[in-house]
């Protein structure tokens, strides 16, 4: 008698896992992911224990005070794991279906007996395994922290449960994008945009969306935290019991089921979509609509198509005039897409916020930086690999263009995009400037100085932003230029930039541990209220921090804003040592050092990229040899007919 199989045969899952195990990339991502997570965990653990140890007993001896430290370290570690899921899961899932489309293998899956839902579920399983493996690596640390005491068992179980559903949630989002888009790169960008949007809505804007992370935070804060009114549902949940936890995650499960069903229906419909840019298709449709409107109404075309031919910079010309993210007309639309919401938010914050609390503006600024960073990194990383995948690179490399000219022209072609992405950033900076400036005081010397300093902040913010965008573009070109596939180059560039950005923000935000409480962010007025260290020492630490941070110059500009406006808000000053004019000079000096360092960093990365251009383009360039004609090989050949 045949015994029915308890576990059904899962050929696609088996194939996916076999493929993943054969890829070097899997192990690299897994190792890097584990190293970053474990490092973050260890830093947090060390920070928590040093804070406790600072209470009295000598280091090296087991400290009884360490007992119960789990209550401090555990929530922080779990938060890092949630962040890791948000950062890694989209990268893991975006290629699940899109890659099948790129390789033209999706059709062969359809002719098998696998149902669409089975395909979706097996794909989901195959991408969950690597993420859960990474999370599993951190469980011994969680167990250790748990053993230190102070963590209730229910918190441990709920952390495991919620991390699992967090992984499934973001995997479903990635899978949905993968089913919709024809290329992995497009799916990658869309996955991160959606993930970022969800994080922005829940984590930053405190909207009551019951994502696993928010359920965790609600349980952690126990109804005392900020935004309680807005997240009444979350705080009404008793996540300490199993039934309460399951009840809390029901909306997430429903959302996941909905997304998976949508993915299933899209699997067929979007299986054979063209590889042409979706953005381009949308823009062409919009063009058609405008054209029809113009034909009827006899309207005026604001930005007419300009027929131009390349001059001396053909590569830059093509990037500038012919690419979707290069054409002026299309870029204006991209600008509108970002600028209108940013302007709306800025006006809202100006109307309903107050100048002394610009935290919301900082959030908008950093959200825009995340989007800008991703767009610049994706574009720059694929500048060469897109030529490779479209088989146009060999033709280009056999021309008279040198490697340096080629790479330089590629980056120059991106400037319009940088300008467009920089405009909303400038709007935020301008709003911050307008929020803080007091034009009423122009008739006094102090008022004029204050206005001048704020104007200086605005100029420096522009320079720092421009510099950072160039740094990211050259770095992405260096990281992704050599790759043979666009997916690989995008993953490489964005993951490394994200690791730099996030890890430096996490690890180097350590002055919080030096103060009585946590450092509240970039607003910084409260920072002067600290008592442990002298102002100069703190500044030295901040300079060090910003030298290694990806956004160090932008951060320094924000700090300069705080110092420059401090004079306008002296009522916030507590210690007489702080808030003097010399602080502005010191902040200015810090800013000059950091800005100079980051400019130097950009120039170094640019120089390194150009220096490594033969390696990136896999072609030798001028100056390799002597430049002399090899006379031996132009010998006349004798005919002996």
């Amino acid at each position, binding site marked *: 008698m045949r015994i029915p199989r308890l576990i059904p045969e899962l050929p696609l899952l088996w194939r996916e896992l076999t493929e993943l195990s054969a890829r070097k990339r899997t192990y690299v991502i897994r190792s890097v992911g584990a190293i970053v997570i474990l490092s973050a965990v260890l830093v947090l653990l060390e920070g928590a224990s040093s804070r406790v140890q600072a209470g009295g007993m000598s280091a090296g001896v087991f400290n009884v005070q360490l007992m119960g430290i789990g209550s401090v370290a555990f929530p922080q570690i779990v938060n890092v794991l949630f962040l890791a899921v948000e950062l890694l899961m989209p990268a893991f899932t975006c290629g699940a279906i899109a890659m099948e489309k790129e390789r033209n293998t999706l059709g062969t899956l359809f002719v098998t007996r696998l149902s669409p839902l089975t395909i979706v579920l097996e794909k989901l399983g195959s991408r969950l395994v690597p993420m859960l493996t990474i999370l599993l690596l951190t469980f011994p640390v969680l167990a250790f922290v748990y053993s230190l005491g102070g963590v209730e068992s229910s918190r441990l179980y709920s952390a495991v449960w919620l991390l699992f559903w967090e992984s499934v949630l973001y995997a479903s989002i990635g899978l949905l994008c993968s089913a919709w888009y024809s290329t992995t790169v497009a799916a990658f960008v869309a996955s991160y945009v959606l993930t970022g949007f969800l994080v922005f809505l829940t984590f930053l804007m405190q909207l009551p969306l019951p994502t696993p992370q928010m359920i965790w935070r609600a349980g952690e804060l126990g109804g005392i935290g900020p935004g309680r009114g807005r997240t009444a549902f979350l705080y009404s949940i008793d996540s300490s019991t199993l039934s309460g936890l399951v009840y809390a995650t029901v909306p997430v499960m429903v959302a996941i089921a909905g997304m998976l069903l949508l993915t299933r229906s899209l699997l067929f419909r979007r299986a054979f979509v063209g590889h042409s840019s979706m953005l381009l298709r949308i823009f062409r449709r919009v063009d058609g609509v405008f054209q029809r409107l113009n034909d009827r109404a006899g309207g005026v075309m604001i930005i007419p198509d300009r027929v131009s031919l390349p001059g001396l910079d053909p590569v830059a010309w093509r990037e500038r005039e012919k690419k979707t993210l290069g054409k002026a007309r299309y870029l204006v639309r991209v600008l509108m897409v970002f600028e209108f919401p940013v302007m709306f938010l800025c006006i809202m914050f100006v109307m309903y916020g107050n100048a002394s609390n610009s935290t919301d503006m900082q959030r908008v600024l950093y959200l825009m930086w995340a989007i800008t960073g991703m767009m610049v990194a994706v574009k720059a990383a694929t500048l060469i690999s897109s030529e490779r995948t479209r088989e146009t690179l060999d033709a280009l490399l056999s021309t008279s263009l040198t490697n340096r000219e080629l790479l330089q022209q590629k980056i120059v072609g991106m400037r319009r995009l940088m300008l467009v992405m920089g405009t909303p950033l400038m709007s935020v900076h301008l709003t911050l400037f307008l929020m803080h400036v007091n034009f009423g005081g122009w008739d006094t010397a102090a008022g004029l100085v204050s206005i001048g300093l704020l104007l200086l902040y605005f100029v420096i913010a522009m320079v720092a932003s421009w510099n950072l965008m160039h740094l990211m573009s050259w770095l992405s070109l260096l990281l992704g230029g050599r790759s043979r596939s666009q997916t690989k180059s995008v993953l490489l560039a964005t993951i490394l930039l994200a690791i730099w950005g996030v890890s430096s923000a996490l690890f180097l935000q350590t002055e919080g541990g030096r103060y009585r409480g946590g450092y509240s962010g970039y607003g910084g007025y409260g920072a002067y209220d600290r008592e442990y260290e002298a102002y100069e020492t703190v500044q030295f630490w901040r300079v060090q921090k910003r030298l290694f941070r990806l956004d160090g110059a932008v951060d320094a500009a924000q700090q300069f804003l705080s110092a420059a406006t401090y004079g306008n808000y002296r009522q916030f000053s507590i210690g007489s040592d702080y808030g003097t004019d010399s602080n502005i000079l010191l902040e200015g000096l810090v800013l000059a050092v950091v800005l100079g360092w980051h400019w130097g960093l950009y120039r170094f990365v640019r120089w390194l990229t150009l220096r490594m251009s033969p390696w990136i383009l896999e072609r030798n360039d001028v100056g390799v040899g002597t430049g002399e004609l090899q006379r031996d090989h132009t010998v*006349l050949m004798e005919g002996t007919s």
Partner: protein
Amino acid sequence: MSTGREPAEPAQETGQRTRRIAISIRNLWVSYGKFDAVKGISLDIPQGEVFGFIGPNGAGKSSTFRVLATLQRKFRGQAYVCGLDVLRQPQQVRDVMGFVPDFFGVYEDLTSLEYLHFFAAAYKVPTAKRKSVIDDVLTLTDMSHKAESPVDGLSRGMKQRLALARVLLHDPQVLLLDEPSSGLDPRARIEMRELLKALKEMGKTIVISSHILSELGQLCTRIGIVELGQLVAEGSLQEIYRRLQVMRLIHIRVENASAELEQRVRAIPGVAKLETQVDRWAISLHEDQTSLAELHAGLVEAGTRLTMFQPEAMDMETAFMKLTEGRTI
């Protein structure tokens, strides 16, 4: 070496026909990791020649092309194009060479005219001369009527012609064409062949690789056959045929076949092998020792009553099959 052509440059010193060497390769080795794709190829291609590069897939043709096109960073040996060292003077080599790779994409966002302007700028053709140069190559490649068409919408044959137009923009002395007829329909192939003939008439040195051997036979003045990274034969078509015809295969049908007659045929001078097949005998003949006419006379003399005497025709396919053993990688 006789090529039967006028020299591309005036002869010097001797009264013999002389020509410059356009391409010279000495002991070329190309390796990818531990795998050697090209193993010690050496050859000289005189100026004005159409050289056919033949070989099975993975034989090392494209790797050799990539070296000559300055797209291979690491290799051993020497390679010169018009006397310029590929490794030491890549930029100068690019100025005298045009390369059409085996797989090539086109920029879908450009029209044919924009595409050519793009590459004219990339080849650093002076701005003032660009229009006339582009008009000339469009006329030469018969693409003038497609100048404003988007490149993406062109047929494969048209794209190949456009690619050829692209590499003519800077008036190179040497053209490297890797499988230019691949995937073309018969009409497009004939048109491509005519275009290459026109370029040959213009005195360009053309190195061409193809699997369509009959075409190479009509076009090439010399061929090189590559297998497993080695040049197994090189020379004019006649030279290669002559070399391969040493063992000509002749099919005969005999009305009075018997074991004794078979023995007598085997004894004819020059007969290396006789294989008895179902309806015929296959004779391998050393043609340098015994001509076909002498074999025929010998067979008659031996008492065979012949109903068929069929020497196997020698063509490029035969030569290719004889010289290569199908050991593709």
